[in-house]
């Protein structure tokens, strides 16, 4: 699943660690999601959407 996490994070000037702390997950988790190696669960996807003030569909895109 593709996502716009890296772009959205960069727009806000956040490091992976900054985002990880906002989400209360590890930096490895953020890195794995950003690079498409891991698709988050629905609850974590909602938390990500809340942190960015967007909907899940605005962040995660259909496709491999």
């Amino acid at each position: 699943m593709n996502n716009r996490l890296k772009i959205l994070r960069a727009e806000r000037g956040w490091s992976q660690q900054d985002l990880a702390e906002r989400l209360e997950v590890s930096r490895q988790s953020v890195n794995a999601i950003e690079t498409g190696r891991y698709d988050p669960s629905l609850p974590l996807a909602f938390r990500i959407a809340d942190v960015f003030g967007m909907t899940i569909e605005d962040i995660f895109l259909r496709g491999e």
Partner: protein
Amino acid sequence: MFGRKSVKNPAYRRYALRMLPVSLLYVGAIMLASRLVPDHAEANPMTIGIALLPGLAVLGWIWTMARLLIELDDEYLRMLEVRKFLVATGVTLAICSVWGLLEIYTDVPKLPVFLVFPLWAMGLFVGMLVNRITQGTAGACA
């Protein structure tokens, strides 16, 4: 604002704090059993009881690893640990099953059941390598 720094998940710290005393118990129980029970001693309630003491530590290891999976609240890190456990289980099943067939059909030495857990632990190391290769990170615990 951010109450929980996730650089090192607290579940890993609790895992290490539990593993240490259980491992010391294992070493102590092995030394005690080796001292008190001669090799190939007759099985009676006393020798069986002493020989089972290290088994309590092994149960402690298993409980500690189960608690890690339960308490690890970071789903990605938990997935890495589960993958290691699965690889370790696969390695152990493969070695024991194949060796068991060799034992049936050939005169290779018997694989002591005692070695199953150490084999599984070595399988965790293989799991770390698999995580490193496929995920770019090994996960925190061996």
